[in-house]
């Protein structure tokens, strides 16, 4: 089992959920988080052209953290590739700030209602 952690734009949560549901992975956990990447904040995040002098100002102060949505999906190992590809495809806008995806190993899972463990718990 693998946990897919995707940190994406808040606006893209709806489309992502739709695509995942169509793929057969309706179960996700979402949380609103703040974060930043290589750009150290908001610089380059918006669609319009930013003058270079403003960009340097933004790096000095400005918006240090950008609001994002954190999605966590636990899937079987064989499904990781398709889910990751689907998330990448929906979330691409060709602009900086599209997000990151991390894949972490999960040892076991338990469904509380029935007590099922392992693959049965996430299927």
């Amino acid at each position, binding site marked *: 089992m693998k946990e897919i952690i995707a940190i994406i734009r808040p606006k893209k949560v709806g489309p992502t959920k739709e695509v995942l549901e169509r793929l057969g992975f309706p179960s996700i956990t979402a949380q609103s988080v*703040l974060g930043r990447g290589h750009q150290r904040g908001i610089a380059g995040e918006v669609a319009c052209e930013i003058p270079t002098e403003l960009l340097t100002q933004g790096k000095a102060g400005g918006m240090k953290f950008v609001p994002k949505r954190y999605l966590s999906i636990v899937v079987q190992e064989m499904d990781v590739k398709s889910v990751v590809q689907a998330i990448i495809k929906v979330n691409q806008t060709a602009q900086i700030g599209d997000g990151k*995806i991390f894949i972490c190993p999960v040892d076991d899972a338990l469904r509380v209602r029935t007590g099922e463990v392992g693959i049965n718990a996430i299927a």
Partner: protein
Amino acid sequence: MKMIRAMIRPDAADTVTQGLADAGFYSMTKFSAFGRGKQKGIVMGSVHYDELPKTMIMVVVEDKDVDEILKLIKYKAYTGNFGDGKVFISPVDDAFTVRTGEKGL
């Protein structure tokens, strides 16, 4: 790659993120969380606070950088009192950048 998740005091969050940025680790995610530790919350007078507000900082880095980040967090989030927080390190198999679809950090 490793994921470092640090549960720290909310007032230490800025110091820690600034310290990480100064050391070259700009990329991180943070959010507020609630939790308790070995001390089962805190008792102030007659009131027992079961869960205390904390900030969780999540950083994914290459294996070789883990020690440096741990040292930084230990130094920046330290007050010496109960409730300074905990740091958890877990493995990460893969990372993808959504915009380019590239593998790796």
